[in-house]
C-alpha cells in the first residue's frame, strides 16, 4: 500500500494500464451479461426480475467494458446520442401510455381503458418494463461517465481512466 496520497493529476497515476487478462475476460463475458440483463428485463412478468433489475445489469455490463478498455475509448464507443435517446424514449413511452388511457376515457395509467383482454394488458406491462429498463440503464451509464470526467471547468484535462490504474495499484 502506498504511503503518500494518490494524486490524480500526476502523470504516473493517470496512465491506463492495459491488462490482457482483463481485456480477454471482459470480451468473453460481457455479451452474456448483457443478454442476461435483457432476459431479466423481458421475463420480469413471470419470474423474479423486471425493468429495474434488468436495467441495472445492462448498465453494469457496459461499465465492465469501461473497466477493461479505458474510459475514454468506451466513451467514444457508446455514443452520447444513444444514451440520451434511451432515457428520453423510455420516459416518453411511459408517459404516452398513461396519457393514451386518459384519451380513451379512463384514468391516468388505467390499462383497462384500452379495452384489451388480459393478454393485451400483459403486453402493455412488458412495454412499460422495457421503458423503465431503458431509463435506468441510460441514467446509470451516464452517471458513471459523468463522475469519471469530474468537474469540467477546473482546468484539468480529462482522465485517462485513472480508475483502472488505481485499482491495479491498490491491489498490488
Amino acid at each position, binding site marked *: 500500500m502506498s504511503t503518500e496520497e494518490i494524486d490524480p493529476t500526476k502523470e504516473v497515476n493517470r496512465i491506463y494500464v492495459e491488462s490482457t487478462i482483463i481485456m480477454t475476460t471482459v470480451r468473453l463475458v460481457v455479451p452474456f451479461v448483457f443478454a442476461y440483463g435483457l432476459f431479466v428485463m423481458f421475463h420480469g412478468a413471470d419470474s423474479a426480475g423486471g425493468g429495474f433489475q434488468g436495467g441495472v445489469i445492462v448498465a453494469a455490463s457496459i461499465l465492465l467494458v469501461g473497466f477493461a478498455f479505458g474510459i475514454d475509448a468506451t466513451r467514444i464507443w457508446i455514443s452520447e446520442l444513444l444514451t*440520451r435517446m434511451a432515457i428520453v424514449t423510455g420516459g416518453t413511452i411511459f408517459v404516452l401510455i398513461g396519457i393514451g388511457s386518459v384519451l380513451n376515457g379512463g384514468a391516468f395509467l388505467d390499462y383497462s381503458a384500452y379495452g384489451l383482454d388480459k393478454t393485451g394488458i400483459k403486453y402493455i406491462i412488458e412495454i412499460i418494463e422495457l421503458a423503465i429498463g431503458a431509463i435506468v440503464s441510460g441514467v446509470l451509464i451516464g452517471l458513471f461517465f459523468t463522475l469519471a470526467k469530474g468537474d469540467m471547468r477546473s482546468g484539468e484535462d480529462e482522465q485517462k481512466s485513472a480508475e483502472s490504474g488505481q485499482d491495479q495499484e491498490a491491489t498490488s
Partner: protein
Amino acid sequence: MLVTITLQAVLFLALFIALVAVALRDVLNSIIAFAVFSFAVAITWVLFAAPDVALTEAAVGAGITTILFLVTIARTVRPSSEELFESIGWRGGVLAVALMGLLVVTVPSLPAIGSTSAPIATAELTNYYLENADTETGVKNVVTAILVAYRGFDTLGEATVVITAGLAALIVLRQETFL
C-alpha cells in the same frame, strides 16, 4: 428450522461486516467491506422469500454503488494513514446508542417473525392482490403486477427520481451532457 438458523447466521455475518466497514480507516477497505455487506444482505432477502428485492440489492448495492464509490475515490483522493482502525468518537457513539435504545424499546411489541397473524400478511388488500393479479393482468409475478399495473403512478415517480438524479449530477459537475 434450518431456514431460521441460516437467517440468523447470515444476519449476524452482515452485522459484523457492517461494523468492519465502519471501523476500518482506509476508505478503499470500507468500500470493499460494503460490497461484501451488500452480498450478505442480498442472501438475507433470498431467505426472506423476496427474490425481486434480492436481485435489485445485489445488482445495485454490490454492483453499481461499489463501482460509483471506486470511481469517486479514483477521481479524488484516497488519504493514507498508518493505523488500521478508526478512533472512537463519543458524540456519535452517544447519539447512536440513544437511538438504538429508543428503537429497542419498541421491538417487543412487534409480532414475532413469520407469525401467521401478522397484520401485513393477513390484510384484505394483500389477499386481493394475490388472488386477482393473474386474472386481471395476466402477469404471474405479483410484485411486477403491483409495481406496474396497480401502483403504476409510483413507478412513474420513481423513474422521475432517477432522471432527476442524473440531471442533478450533471448540474453539480457543471457539464452539459451525459458522457
